């Protein structure tokens, strides 16, 4: 069988989504950010909401998300993505607003904005990338770093007596009544990528129905700052991070409108 017979329009089973711009991403090789960008944009394309979606980019590795996502984007000050998204959603209630934040942005400097946006039940979707480390500033300890994890600011391992415990933002937010949907997923295996895509789709569908704040936490890797190869960093996620940050739906709406 010659290749030309297989490579035809009719046989196409997977292609890059049209909502993702055709530019090379600046992320390190093997970074989970680009995978999440892609599945998010696949969902936006499938739901047909690209022309009425507004995204808010954070500060961190994904600060240039607006270069890659072919939807209207706004870049927020460090940690303030949920506050900016609140403003956008209130001025344009017919638009679908999401924020895309890392753990240094959402769980450290932006904790207050995130918790209060969730408590107000703002009708936005938050995509939260949790890799347990500050990526852009070269590997400092984040609030989500695991106990005993070595980073540049905790070179002898994170001592929970002096540096506190890793923070489970998703469980915290799930307690609030304004929050409709909270889930934690990962993207280091093809099956988990499919599941994460399903969860992002669910979150955006709840957003479209106006059911309140929804959060999709994605446990991801950081090969450069964990000083590992991409495959080793995925094994680290599997063996060390997933046992602490357990995957699955944390809160689902009791009744679907």
């Amino acid at each position, binding site marked *: *069988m010659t*290749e030309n*017979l*297989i*490579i*035809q329009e*009719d*046989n*196409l*089973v*997977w*292609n*890059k989504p049209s909502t*993702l711009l055709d530019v*090379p*991403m600046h*992320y*390190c*090789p*093997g*970074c*989970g*950010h*680009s*995978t999440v960008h*892609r599945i998010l944009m696949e969902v936006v394309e499938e739901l047909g909401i690209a022309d009425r979606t507004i995204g808010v980019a954070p500060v961190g590795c994904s600060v240039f998300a607006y270069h890659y996502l072919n939807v209207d984007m706004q870049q927020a000050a460090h940690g303030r993505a949920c506050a900016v998204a609140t403003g956008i959603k209130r001025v344009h209630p017919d638009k679908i607003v999401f924020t895309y934040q890392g753990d240094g942005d959402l769980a450290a400097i932006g904790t207050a904005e995130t918790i209060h946006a969730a408590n107000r039940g703002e009708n936005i979707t938050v995509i939260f990338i949790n890799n347990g480390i500050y990526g852009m500033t070269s590997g400092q300890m984040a609030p989500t770093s695991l106990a005993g994890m070595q980073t540049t600011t905790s070179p002898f391992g994170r001592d929970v007596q002096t540096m506190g415990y890793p923070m489970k933002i998703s469980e915290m937010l799930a307690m609030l009544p304004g929050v409709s949907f909270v889930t934690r997923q990962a993207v280091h*295996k*093809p099956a988990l*990528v*499919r599941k994460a895509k399903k969860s992002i789709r669910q979150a955006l569908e709840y957003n479209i129905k106006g059911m309140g704040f929804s959060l999709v936490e994605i446990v991801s890797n950081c*090969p450069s700052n964990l000083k590992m*190869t*991409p*495959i080793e960093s*995925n094994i680290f996620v599997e063996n060390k991070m997933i046992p602490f940050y357990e995957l699955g739906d944390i809160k689902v709406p009791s009744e679907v409108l």
Partner: protein
Amino acid sequence: MAKVKGDIVIDLEICKGCELCISVCPEDTLGLGNKINVKGYRYIAKVNDNCTGCSNCAIICPDSVFTVYRMKLN
């Protein structure tokens, strides 16, 4: 049972050679080549014709390097 035959097209210039696709390919179709692309990374190449078009490589690939095709053989 109809046999399935697949094929992939690789965008060499945006591949960063992270090798995640090699680790998930059930047919061991992918390998890291010796050549270097414009960005300075060794990029992925097909090493055999066993591809079944399962799309695992495309789903795990962070940089959307692959386009996957699949057809049934009679």
